[in-house]
């Protein structure tokens, strides 16, 4: 119990430190790398919450591929962020952030404790999913059986969203096809 508290406190402190560094740095490349590090620490946080599948996704997508894609997109961007002097906009931003953070912290007092059996999330469908995954589907990993079978529609939606996003980026940025494809050449003739 004490060990868990120490680990969580360490991870939260680390995330806060990285966040402060992200705000302070002006170089875009350090921001990208620090964001990747932040994702990696977030993945450790998910491991300490026993959500291994989410941690795996966070580590591979958040820390891995998005860092690489940001680096690849770096050539579009200026190397450094512009220095801006303190003005009225910042005061509005500070007020908004303080109010929203205050509301969120206030609302967090109503949240149930993590990992309690009587929490609302464990009362309704979770029981059926855990038993059904063993008896009906026969797969030890409950996450996979929920993702692919019980909530197959949602995952199909996610796949189509990724597909659509990929196609949209290709339409906007990819100029390699039109030069090499036979259809384009045929039209030119």
């Amino acid at each position, binding site marked *: 119990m004490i060990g868990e508290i120490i680990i969580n406190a360490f991870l939260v402190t680390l995330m806060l430190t990285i966040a402060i560094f992200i705000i302070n740095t002006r170089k875009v490349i350090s921001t990208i790398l620090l964001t990747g590090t932040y994702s990696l620490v977030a993945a450790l946080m998910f491991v300490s919450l026993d959500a291994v599948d989410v941690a795996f996704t966070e580590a591979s997508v958040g820390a891995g591929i998005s860092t690489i894609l940001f680096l690849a997109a770096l050539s579009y961007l200026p190397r450094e962020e512009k220095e801006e002097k303190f003005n009225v906009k910042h005061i509005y931003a500070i007020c908004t952030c303080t109010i929203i953070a205050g509301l969120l912290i206030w609302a967090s007092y109503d949240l149930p404790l993590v990992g309690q059996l009587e929490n609302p999330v464990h009362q309704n469908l979770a029981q059926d999913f855990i038993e059904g995954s063993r008896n009906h589907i026969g797969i030890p990993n409950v996450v996979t059986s929920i993702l692919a079978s019980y909530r197959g529609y949602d995952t*199909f939606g996610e796949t189509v969203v990724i597909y659509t996003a990929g196609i949209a980026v290709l339409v906007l940025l990819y*100029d390699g096809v039109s030069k090499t494809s036979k259809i384009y050449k045929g039209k030119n003739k």
Partner: protein
Amino acid sequence: MDNLILKVCTKVLFTPIILFGLYVQFHGDFGPGGGFQAGVIVAAAFILYAMVFSVEDCKVIMPPKLNFFLLALGAFIYGFVGIIGLILGDPYLSYDVLGSTKEAGQHIGILLVEFGVGLTVCNVMISLFYSFANFNFGKRNND
């Protein structure tokens, strides 16, 4: 990039990374993992290759046409598995009728569906990298 150590390391690591991706893909029923993670890991292998050698070299082992075809094929596999169930007289995306028993049907359905997800995610990531990198080189040539 002209670094011998990086090139040799990439050549050595390329296959194990893809093998690990396949392990995550098809072992998702029994441990952490699944289509999303596996797709990203396999895409990372290709992107590593493109970064260390060049994007043109990577286009030889993964041609853009094949990439776009597989990108669409993944989403198609997912939707088609659902339609097979529909034809055999079950609700859409219910895998019970795909195998001899209900459990076998669920296993086959989940495996196919995860494969579709992995294929789409992997190829979307590779094509994103291609499109960023392509633009990049065009700009440098103009300078």
